[in-house]
């Protein structure tokens, strides 16, 4: 039924003669971009209107960010044309883009920590010899007032929260006179409350006549904030339509190219037994900042324990403490295997934990910086956990190769072969390789940090299925996530971290998104509701 023409959808890949809106203020026509042999965008079309919020939707590797990078001057298209108000333009650099009133807010902020917001905003702008910081601050305040931003121009960046930093990036773009704002997955780092504030500001800007493009793959956000949605698949334009005329199912199907089931399974835990007990753990990091305060919880076998929290609230430290990568100041982390003596893990290195026979699998947040070696191929990455096997000093290359080939086949990893460096794979495939390896060791505890971050719907559901399988096999799963809808749909219990403290543990079957969102931001006097699990 897809893609062509269905339900008032403009045909994808239309050439020359098909009649798109002639009044669109920005038109991208037949844009093609190649990276080596990969085709990132294939004759892509897109219309952007003033006074409209456009959601650009697509799976990973569908070319959303690449297309927008060409509009903002980061990349230069191999073929195709860009028209602004019916005049053809050539965008050679971000400066050209700014001159045309196009500004992009990237996923990774580009701010100087030790400067103030106002200083960051004017950084790189041409000007006279003397700098009038007061005038700059005043102009920044005026912009903030106009659209309802809440930042202090004189505050240093290192004192700011993630959402404040994002606001500075947006104001920076507006200060330069941007009429077209492109936001690359802006909500990935925000709490539900912050997301609401951002959406309000976006609507204000739209009402002011600006064109807003928001790149995302969260469908409910598309529905909430956008006026129109355009969908890319495999680098090509599939179609666009007013958001009110479509629904999540249709959008998903267009994105994936075939019907997809959108429900997460949550089987009841079978015979849960305490497997990992964390008691009163305090942890100070290398910089001397205390990251964890008196953290206590129990992870049970055959159960998924979710961990919710604003990013940087101790999730990373908690998992790394359990894995033996960071040493807590005090407390205990006890591993309780079936029918065997309990073992204390604090003070052991990852190697010693392994030697104790504790199979603890860990899918870290930083996939290519910790979980895998980007420049090595799949076989060599499989070895990371097992290279010590065998009694000689030589490597056993055979079994990792077999394991790699098995994972590629079973998890449908898209790769030219097991000898391709994993850095060249797409995000979803990298994660499949990593999760595949961690599961292959038949763990008794599986920890995952942001396992589906940056992954498209299809890959995400593959990962949820894998995690659920582990749960059914009696593994104690700890799932650190950021999407509350998923946490509530997947986890049996959800532990909420707030500034390194446990702010309560709620039941995933009865929990409510708003309640968790509040617990993430507001500390409830150190009181713990802990242990009210399985209810």
């Amino acid at each position, binding site marked *: 039924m897809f893609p062509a023409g269905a339900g008032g959808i403009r045909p994808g890949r239309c050439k*020359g003669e098909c009649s798109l809106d002639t009044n669109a203020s920005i038109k991208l026509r037949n844009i093609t971009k*190649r990276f080596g042999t990969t085709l990132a965008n294939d004759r892509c079309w897109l219309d952007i209107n003033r006074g409209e919020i456009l959601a650009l939707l697509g799976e990973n590797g569908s070319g959303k960010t690449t297309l927008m990078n060409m509009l903002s001057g980061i990349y*230069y298209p191999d073929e195709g044309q860009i028209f602004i108000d019916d005049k*053809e333009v050539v965008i050679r650099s971000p400066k050209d883009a700014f001159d045309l009133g196009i500004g992009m807010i990237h996923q990774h902020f580009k701010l100087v920590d030790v400067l103030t917001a106002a200083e960051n905003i004017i950084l790189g702008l041409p000007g006279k010899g003397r700098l009038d910081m007061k005038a700059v601050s005043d102009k920044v305040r005026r912009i903030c007032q106009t659209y309802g931003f809440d930042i202090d121009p004189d505050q240093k960046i290192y004192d700011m929260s993630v959402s404040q930093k994002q606001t500075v990036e947006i104001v920076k773009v507006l200060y330069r006179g941007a009429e077209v704002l492109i936001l690359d997955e802006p909500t990935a780092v925000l709490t539900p409350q912050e997301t609401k504030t951002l959406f309000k500001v976006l609507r204000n800007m739209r009402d002011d006549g600006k064109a807003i493009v928001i790149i995302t793959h969260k469908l409910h956000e598309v529905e909430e904030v956008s006026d129109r949605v355009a969908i890319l698949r495999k680098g090509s334009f599939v179609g666009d339509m007013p958001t009110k005329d479509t629904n999540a199912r249709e959008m998903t199907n267009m994105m994936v190219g075939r019907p997809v089931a959108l429900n997460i399974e949550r089987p009841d835990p079978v015979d849960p037994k305490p497997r990992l007990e964390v008691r009163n753990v305090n942890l100070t990091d290398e910089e001397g900042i205390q990251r964890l305060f008196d953290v206590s919880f129990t992870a049970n076998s055959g159960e998924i324990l979710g961990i919710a929290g604003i990013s940087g609230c101790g999730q990373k430290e908690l998992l790394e403490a359990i894995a033996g990568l960071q040493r807590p100041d005090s407390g205990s982390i006890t591993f309780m295997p079936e029918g065997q003596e309990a073992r204390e893990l604090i003070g052991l*290195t990852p190697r010693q934990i392994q030697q104790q026979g504790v199979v603890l699998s860990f899918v870290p947040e930083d996939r290519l*910086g*910790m979980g895998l070696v980007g420049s090595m191929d799949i076989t060599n990455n499989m070895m990371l956990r097992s*290279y010590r096997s065998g009694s000689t*000093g*030589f490597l056993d290359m055979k079994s990792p190769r077999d394991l790699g080939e098995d994972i590629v086949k079973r998890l449908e990893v898209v790769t030219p072969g097991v000898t391709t460096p994993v850095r060249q794979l797409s995000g979803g495939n990298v994660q499949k390789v990593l999760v595949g390896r961690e599961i292959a060791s038949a763990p008794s505890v599986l920890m995952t940090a942001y396992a589906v971050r940056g992954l498209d719907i299809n890959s995400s559901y593959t990962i949820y299925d894998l995690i659920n399988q582990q749960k059914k096999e009696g593994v104690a799963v700890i799932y650190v996530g950021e999407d509350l809808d998923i946490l509530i749909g997947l986890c049996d219990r959800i532990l909420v971290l707030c500034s390194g403290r446990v702010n309560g543990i709620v039941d995933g079957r009865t929990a409510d998104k708003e309640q968790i969102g509040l617990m993430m931001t507001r500390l409830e006097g150190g009181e713990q509701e802990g242990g009210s699990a399985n209810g």
Partner: protein
Amino acid sequence: MGESVKYAVKEPLVHITRRTDIRSWKAWLIRVASVVLALIVNALFIYSVTGLDPVKVYTVMIQGTFQSTYNFLTSMRDVALLLCIAIALAPAFKMRFWNIGAEGQVLMGGLATALVMIYLGNAMPPWLLMVTMFAASIAAGALWAVIPAIFKAKWKTNETLFTLMMNYIAINIVDCLTNIWRGSKSSMGQINANTQAGWFPRLLGYRFTINIIIVLVLTVVMYIYLKYTKDGYEIAVIGESENTARYAGINVKRAIVRTLLISGAICGLAGCITVAGKNQTISVNTAGGYGFTAIIVAWLAKFNTFYMMLIAFILIVLEKGAIQIASAYTLLNDYAADIITGVILFFILGSEFFINYRVVFRARRDREEEQA
């Protein structure tokens, strides 16, 4: 793209894109082309500055290595020395431990050999003397490398500065000892010139045959060590990401110390074969700057010891050629030779850019579009 819209604004003249799909024959073609280009640039330089025939100058340069069997063999001796140090550096650099201290480690190995030759030369049978020389030089080189390694592992000191400074300490120790040994004589002279104790025996007519054999064995062993052993795997992982190494349960500190023991030990051995198999003397110039040149060899070869052979060979041919033209012409001294070598190295290094990136010109795209 049948429609031919005139470009309202000119697109950029050049833009650069990354390539991931280059075939190895193409990469080698680019490398060879870069050398050819370098030779052309050098020819222009030689002709415009001196008016000499560049082809003749190049012929003379090549003769530095290929004029006679003797020239060729001594070149091979020097290739072996340079390669030996590059092999020593490979594991350290692959681990991203910036060992700039090979010069000092080689000197300390050479000094240890000289000490054994001078003080024990007549006190033990020849085979035991050889074993002692090897052991002492390996220990001295390893010691010189392991000190910065321990500091790096324990207190995260900067190994680049540390290893560099260790060079100067080594140079001064050697300077001091040679001063003592030579007494009032103008030069140190060959050690044990009368007894030849501790000199490598002649094999096939030359003492340095043993050097070449040792280095050939090391080339194979180091290749296997880096590629097929567990230690080699740990080195590769640490070099890419220390975090991943810790995650995989690798004891990073121990691996740093272990790798630098190996690196320093081979440097020490290079000092030993220089003293016992080449000049039978010791001076601050024993390492001859090879400790630094070897860094280029190791990096250009991306730590593949067999590629290192080729690169060490090219560098030595250039070095011998430089000496040759400096003696053959009055207009070209060895500074001019350095310029020629510099240009060639610059082009070889620059070719890596064209292997990793593609440069697209406006004109070329227009042509491509016309064809389409």
